[in-house]
């Protein structure tokens, strides 16, 4: 728990973004939708599959690496806003914006991303 709090402090906590997914595969109450956190990360895995797409990333924190899991909406919904199965690949260096898990674990709900070429998807700062 201590390590988790430390890592959250190391991340910039940004102002809330107006994004509130409604009824889905499960409730979003496990995420703190009032907080948006910026993660500079390297993609280790991108899973494009229902019920939710997932991004797994490595986040460097004070010389160490943390593995984070970021849940997204459904692939079909993501496709509506420009995502594709090939939008991310392992090794991509990205900046992710997420709503963090309330319990402090290394996970969150996707808000937006800046891709290696500088283009963005979703809501970014």
């Amino acid at each position, binding site marked *: 728990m201590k390590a988790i709090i430390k890592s959250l402090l190391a991340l910039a906590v940004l102002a809330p973004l107006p994004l509130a997914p409604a*009824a889905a*595969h499960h409730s979003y109450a496990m995420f703190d939708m009032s907080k948006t956190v910026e993660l500079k990360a390297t993609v280790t895995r991108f899973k494009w599959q*229902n019920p939710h797409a997932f991004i797994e990333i490595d986040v460097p924190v004070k010389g160490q690496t943390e593995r984070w899991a970021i*849940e997204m909406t459904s692939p*079909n919904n993501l496709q*509506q806003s420009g995502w594709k199965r090939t939008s991310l690949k392992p090794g991509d260096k990205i900046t992710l914006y997420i709503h963090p898990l309330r319990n402090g674990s290394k996970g969150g709900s996707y808000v937006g991303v800046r891709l290696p070429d500088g283009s963005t998807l979703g809501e970014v700062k």
Partner: protein
Amino acid sequence: MRRTRNILIACAATLALGGLAHAQSGGSSPPEGLAEGQGAGFAKGHYAALDSLPDWGGVWFLNRGGPSTQPKLKGDYQSNWDAWKADVAANNGVEKRNRSNCSPPGMPRIMQLAQYPYEFIFSPGRVTINQEAWMQTRTIWTDGRTHPPLEELDPTYMGHSIGHWEGDTLVVDTIGILDMLPFSNGALHSDKFHVTERIHLNPDNPDVLVNEMVMEDPEALAEPFKATATYRRDRYGVLYEFQCSENNRNPISPDGETVFE
């Protein structure tokens, strides 16, 4: 030429009868309200009539937003909901679950899901709603059958739905929904729960489909509960596969907590 005409006459006669003489071939009897040889199982010859139905082509995504109202519950249903609400509040807003996130919500919440689109398939005697979520299929019988008596109906996630067209509005009546499934924000219903839906295009925007739902329950609800869902059209969209067990990152712990992996 003459032969063609004879065939046409034979076809017309078949239509009028509802079908050729049909020996019972399977194990099932005609459904409640229909006679032998009638119903959706005798679709041939009735496809042309479908062209008079409204244009619901493409897939439909739920529009988010709109204020959600709270159903007015009765007796134990109210006190159970109060306890549920207190429990959720004590748990950081996270609802505890007694079943997997890989099991669908059932009616009517299956019609109110934001992330996964729907498609409506018309065929003689039925409307089929394919749902990306959990790859669920909902059948609305429009062949004139009635509901079986409630005591003969097996309670299910989707319930038993019959429908008819009033102009361009599909009116659907559903009973027999499992009483373990919350119908709105943790609220439960009895086995007398009854849902009516009026589904139609928005007259001001044909790319919006409207589903006006009214829920009634003599045991659980003090007054009918109304909820309206609207959906936006994606004309070239398709449903994606949904195999929950292949990507289940949210298992349920023995304490009912949704785990995040």
